[in-house]
């Protein structure tokens, strides 16, 4: 693996560690307001959320840019990749400095001063140039994962631009317009990085199972089309309660969550085709993919319920939304991305880190389950009291929720420990590989 790829992977893992540390601190600030001066929640929350988003985006692109070297017949010229990383890393550092100085100005999840969106956009265009330079040499009928990577990269650009449209005054003429555009872009952007991550998951399944057929044929492309429909139209569930145009609500409700069902089917098909030898050879990546499948199943069940407006009326604005977001970002995205990093750094070639990574994975999975259930419990209590009992006073509303939030914080420490061990082990393997293969793209 080239030094540029190593830099990309290391940056992603460092962002994951940062997100974990900031997340635990923010949770303590949340349940114990007396710590407000030492742990300022208004800074910790955006820093945690941004670090988590940047981990997912950086981890997803690290996989796509690494795997493209295997898929497209073009010699690696790292200039564009390095230029992207240089600008991307510099901008992310500026973002965290801005948060440290209480310098805000953007929208939720992207709360840094909006001027920083400019270098971020330029960095993304450099990444696109690097990807499409190789993409032009693709085979006549590329497998599905190539289309998924391409869709994800293009739609990230579109949604990133949409997310900044609020800076044009027309988009702020009415609050409904500006709210709709903001949550359209936020929702669709999740679909964009999911395309990149699931594309890499599919690529890894092909490599581990040795069956290219799962990434070809009408059934596989039907899955991609449904994922794309979700990306483009399923953002409406964020806005069920807002007086937007009715079609937004009805289309989002109708499209629902078919993408998840098809993903499970594909992974199950992959499992059936694995022979024992290959499964054991790539055990760590396989186990992370199976962990992702488990969370797809749990989150599918929750998402299907939340996509029904009559139920969403009870869950919207409660911690159930957070449970869904955590299940998706940690349970699905992070598990797949860690499996992808484990594959890239060939973690199974050295037994010791693989054992620690497995311990970390089990700790993270168990803790995440408690974390997720605590958030659902908190959301059920809040939703019932707010919607069924009609309680409007915030203190009164939240008082019985507090024990669930304490359980959520304790479980969060377990998630921190488990994922922290995994990320640290992967960084150590990356470092040792750096010494063993300083300038190569091959094992």
């Amino acid at each position, binding site marked *: 693996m080239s030094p540029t790829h190593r830099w990309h992977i290391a940056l992603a893992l460092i962002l994951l560690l940062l997100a974990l540390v900031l997340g635990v601190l923010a949770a303590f600030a949340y349940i114990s307001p007396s710590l407000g001066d030492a742990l300022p929640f*208004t800074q910790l929350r955006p820093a945690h959320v941004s670090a988590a988003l940047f981990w997912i985006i950086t981890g997803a692109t690290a996989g796509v840019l690494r795997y493209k070297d295997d898929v497209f017949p073009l010699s690696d010229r790292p200039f564009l990749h390095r230029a992207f990383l240089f600008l991307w890393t510099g901008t992310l550092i500026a973002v965290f400095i801005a948060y440290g100085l209480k310098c805000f100005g953007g*929208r939720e999840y992207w709360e840094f001063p909006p001027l920083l969106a400019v270098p971020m956009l330029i960095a993304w265009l450099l990444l696109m140039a690097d990807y499409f330079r190789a993409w032009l040499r693709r085979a006549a009928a590329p497998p599905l994962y190539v289309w998924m990577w391409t869709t994800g990269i293009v739609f990230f650009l579109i949604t990133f631009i949409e997310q900044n449209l609020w800076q044009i005054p027309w988009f702020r003429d009415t609050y409904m317009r500006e709210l709709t555009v903001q949550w359209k872009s936020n929702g669709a952007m999740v679909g964009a990085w999911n395309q990149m991550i699931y594309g890499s998951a599919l690529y890894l399944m092909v490599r581990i199972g040795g069956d290219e057929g799962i990434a070809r044929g009408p059934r596989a492309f039907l899955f991609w089309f449904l994922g794309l429909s979700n990306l483009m139209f399923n953002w409406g569930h964020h*806005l069920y309660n807002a007086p937007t145009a009715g079609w937004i609500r009805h289309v989002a409700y109708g499209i629902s969550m078919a993408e998840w069902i098809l993903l499970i089917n594909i992974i199950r098909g992959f499992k059936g085709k694995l022979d024992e030898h290959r499964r054991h050879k790539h055990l760590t990546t396989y186990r992370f993919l199976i962990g992702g499948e488990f969370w797809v199943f749990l989150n599918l069940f929750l998402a299907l319920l939340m996509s029904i407006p009559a139920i969403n009326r009870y869950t919207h*604005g409660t911690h159930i939304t957070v449970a869904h977001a955590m299940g998706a970002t940690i349970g699905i995205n992070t598990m797949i991305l860690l499996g992808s990093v484990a594959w890239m750094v060939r973690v199974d070639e050295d037994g010791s880190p693989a054992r620690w990574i497995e311990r970390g994975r089990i700790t993270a999975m168990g803790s995440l389950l408690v974390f997720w259930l605590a958030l659902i419990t908190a959301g059920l209590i809040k939703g019932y009291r707010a919607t069924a009992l009609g309680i409007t006073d915030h203190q009164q509303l939240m008082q019985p929720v507090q024990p669930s939030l304490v359980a959520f914080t304790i479980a969060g420490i377990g998630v921190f420990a488990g994922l922290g061990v995994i990320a640290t082990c992967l960084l150590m393997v990356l470092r040792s590989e750096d010494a063993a293969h300083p300038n190569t793209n091959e094992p």
Partner: protein
Amino acid sequence: MRLWQVSNCAACHQLYGLGGYMGPDLTNVHSAKGEAHIRTFVRYGTGRMPAHELSEEELDALVAFLAWVDASGRSRVPDSAVHWTGTFDIPAR
């Protein structure tokens, strides 16, 4: 709106159920609690909420923003708006 973003109010508060979970949803706080309530909370804070050192003009702008959001609709969907198919009948604004 600029002050809402610069002060990062969304870290703790929601509008239409979207935002942070530390404090209450403020979509309809203007009509429910009134202008004086907003001014007092922003200026002096609470056990959980920090006091914000805003000028009179800035405070006016923040109150005007919350009045603008309030006029756009209701955050809570009433029972009467739930259709038998499970969706909502909410007139678009």
